[in-house]
């Protein structure tokens, strides 16, 4: 009986106008979105290659003097990835440029790159956005009258006059909606992969297909959750237009209002000091250090590394660096906490859960940024050690480590290929899983609760 019901429901949905319009909208949007992502990826890669070349030239210029290598600011720009066609994980908006010297990791910023400040901020037209915004809406649109609509048409009482269990009926409805919409997603993704293959911009290999498989898995879970919300709304009312209003209100709240409230919530619930305050505090502390620095701490003689006052200068500069670093690291910590806590607030929204699951799946977004930030700190320590080891071998160096200036450490040249360069390591399986854990639990729990509610509600539903 269940199979008959399921096939009947599925046919009903597939031949319905709503599904057909949804299909007609979604598949072209998938293709257009992928095309647009491929173009964007191509542009970003070209620019990235140009900048990398420029960085290599800069590094070879610095290689004439090892201290210059150590004290000059280098940067690591997060390279564009193939998975951007599926989900860019908002990496164009998150900080994507990390700066460091041998002495410290100095900070991070959002590289303007190809971003046009005169264009309104818009989420990338990638697969994730299509599922998040469009498919969620279409799922509700397909599900809202599953029960109340049948009641209005008086077909519900007819169905239950046969030997059909309510559970089977509800589950067939649910499975019908999910199957129909998952088919659209599958067609859209397959078309998109074809576009990606033809563009030659994306390497469609085993690894890529594996994460796409994972994405489809999270997508399926997301569609199921939205379908349950639609079914619940349908069981809450006897009239389909009321169910529709409930669905629309829930969607507006979940997809539009709640995600867009994060900025306000971050500011109100987890406030952090602004940059002007932090800068003023740092300036005060640095002025204090300079005021109390021993005489001679500012004297310098570029011609003579062993000029006795260089030691005082190096100590003072180190103190200045440490003070700034301490303040900045504390502030960065506050930024991370503010972001993470704000995200945690959104854990109850299926859209936020889906977003985080995808970040974990692709190893992108905040997970990628944070991993690079942590890894860069480890690299910086080894970079400093490398510099100190080379400096220790130079007899012409007084070994007074000055983090900002090329005054009192080795001025020997070094081969460019010997200079340590930071390389990114993708997040491992365990890291990704840990990142996804909360969202996954929340999504499954929410799905379970809503399904149970829907079931209980439907058991008591007056079908007459």
């Amino acid at each position: 009986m269940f199979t008959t019901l399921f096939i009947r429901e599925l046919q009903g949905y597939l031949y319905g106008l709503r599904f057909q319009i949804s299909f007609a909208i979604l598949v072209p949007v998938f293709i257009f979105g992928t095309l647009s992502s491929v173009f964007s990826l191509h542009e970003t890669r070209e620019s990235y290659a140009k900048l990398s070349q420029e960085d290599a030239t800069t590094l070879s210029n610095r290689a004439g003097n090892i201290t210059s290598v150590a004290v000059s600011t280098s940067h690591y720009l997060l390279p564009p990835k193939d998975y951007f066609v599926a989900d860019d994980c908002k990496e164009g908006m998150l900080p994507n440029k990390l700066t460091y010297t041998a002495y410290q990791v100095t900070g991070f910023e959002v590289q303007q790159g190809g971003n046009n400040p005169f264009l309104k901020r818009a989420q990338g037209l990638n697969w994730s956005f299509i599922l998040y915004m469009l498919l969620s809406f279409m799922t509700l649109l397909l599900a809202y009258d599953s029960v109340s609509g049948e009641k209005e048409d008086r077909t519900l009482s007819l169905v239950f006059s046969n030997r059909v269990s309510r559970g089977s009926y509800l589950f067939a409805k649910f499975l019908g909606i999910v199957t129909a919409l998952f088919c659209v997603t599958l067609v859209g993704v397959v078309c998109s992969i074809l576009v990606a293959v033809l563009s030659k911009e994306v390497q469609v290999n085993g690894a890529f297909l594996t994460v796409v498989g994972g994405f489809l898995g999270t997508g399926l879970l997301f569609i199921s959750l939205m379908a349950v919300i639609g079914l619940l709304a349908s069981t809450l009312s006897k009239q389909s237009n009321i169910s529709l209003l409930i669905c629309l209100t829930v969607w507006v709240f979940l997809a539009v209002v709640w995600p867009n409230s994060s900025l306000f919530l971050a500011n109100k619930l987890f406030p952090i000091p602004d940059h002007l305050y932090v800068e003023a505090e740092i300036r005060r502390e640095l002025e204090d250090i300079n005021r109390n620095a021993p005489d001679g701490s500012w004297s310098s003689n570029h011609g003579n590394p062993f000029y006795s006052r260089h030691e005082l200068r190096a100590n003072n500069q180190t103190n200045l660096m440490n003070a700034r670093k301490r303040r900045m690291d504390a502030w960065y910590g506050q930024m991370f906490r503010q972001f993470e806590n704000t995200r945690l607030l959104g854990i109850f929204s299926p859209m936020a859960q889906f977003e985080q699951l995808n970040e974990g799946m692709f190893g992108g977004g905040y997970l990628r940024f944070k991993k690079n930030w942590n890894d860069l700190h480890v690299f910086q320590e080894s970079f400093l050690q490398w510099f100190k080891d080379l400096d220790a071998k130079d007899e012409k160096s007084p070994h007074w480590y000055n983090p900002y200036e090329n005054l009192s450490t080795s001025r020997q040249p070094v081969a460019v290929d010997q200079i340590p360069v930071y390389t990114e390591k993708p997040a491992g399986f365990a890291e990704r899983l840990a990142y996804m854990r909360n969202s996954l639990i929340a999504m499954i729990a929410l799905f379970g609760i809503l399904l149970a509610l829907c079931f209980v509600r439907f058991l008591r539903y007056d079908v007459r």
Partner: protein
Amino acid sequence: MIGLIARKDFLLNLTSARFVIGLAVCLLVIPFTLVTSVDRYKQQINVYKTASEKVETEYKAAKVYSNVRPSVIHRPEALAVFSEGVSRNMGNTVQLQYGEYPLLLSGVAGFSNPLLNAFFSLDFATVIAIVLSLFALVFSYDAFTRERENNTLKMILVNRINRSAFFIGKFLGILLTLVPMLLFCFVTGILFLLLSPDIALDGAMWTNVLLLFLSAVLYVVVFVLFGLFVSAMSKRSSTSIAVCLLCWIWLLFLVPNIAVWSAKSFVKTEQYDNMQLALDDVEEPYWKEREEKSREILKMLDIDGLSHWNYNGGSDGYLEFSGGLRKALDYHLNFSTWEVPRLIDYADKKWAVQKEYLDGLVKQERFQQRLALLSPSEIFGQLASSLCYSDPGYYLVYMERVREYRQTFIDYVRERKLYESSTWGTRMDPENFVSDERYSEMIQDYETAFQQGPEAIRQFRASLPPGWNDGNYGPLDVVGFPVFDYKPHTRTDAYNFVLARFALLMGIALVLLMLTMLRFRNYQL
């Protein structure tokens, strides 16, 4: 008869669940959006005030002309509370430079945490665009189909009721239901503005609020007519609602994104970093010329190396020093006289590259803007951001004024040849600089004092000629230097822009009205 139908529909709508839910959504979302927008504005104003104070203090503390370098801090526009436009993409600071034209606002205007860039925010105009258009469709999608399904349409039209009158009555009935919701939204918005002590609007701004309200009414009219049109095209309410809602999501959420990403994909612009590299290329000969000029002056003055007691300097003509060789002063006088006009010349050359980049951005933005006109919500959004001084046009004009101000400032400095005076880099009396021999002796004395300890150093410092120790002279008088002033509502282009969008919305409404009337005349009962 029209009034009767409108009244009946209005009263029926008022008691419907749709109205209750619609009003509840407005009650919940509008105040919340306003609270967030006002809060954001307060944050921006605080940043603005702190930054302005800092800049003002630094400007007034300048002791030499090379450091008299005004920064322009952009004051956030209060009306952006209604529509934030592209304001979140913009910084708030411009530091005037001799060697470069200001291109865009830099710095941080609001939230300091760049990670929060990943979050989007809603503004009043967007909420109006989303919620009111949705409810306009929800109220109108079954205007004819429901009557047909309930068999009431036949009964009404068998009486002596003109179909056009019936249609107009329906339309007015729905509009009458939605206008109170819209009024509620605007009254709440205005109350928020009036109750916020940080926000003060002038007459022109209130006019813009009124225009925004009228635009919102027109926008709602467009969606009501669209819903009626779809209803007149359909025989069943379920068909009508499916078409309406799928069109709604297409117009509200897809067209804007497609417009942005089409512009990004098909209208190429130079990457910002590539533009910076191109600027470096333009600037490269300057650094060579600079080095040659420096060598030439050193040779002319017969100086082996420059020695100062206190020195602070950098690129773009920044220079402040006190104490040291007399020849060092002569060097700087000669060098600044050459350097500053050269920097200004190079700024003109660099501007060609910057302008090309800026034109690319504008071209891309215009493409996006035109493509987005396919969606009434985007037309309304463009209209709202223009009325609320947060559209790209506002920032383009603002930056043009800043560049004009830079020119005025440079003209002021050039006319007075400030960079040819010693005050460009020092306030010390030239007589108090010393000869090579005397300087060597002083350095020797300092070394001795250094060996003897802090007390000897203090005594040595006290014995230095007047002005050698940094801070022995007060700030310069900067009264008379040009000051930046900008009034947004002096823009005439904005009104043309608004008028064009208003006319477009009106045009869409008229076309929909005609089509729906035509369609409804032939509607099968």
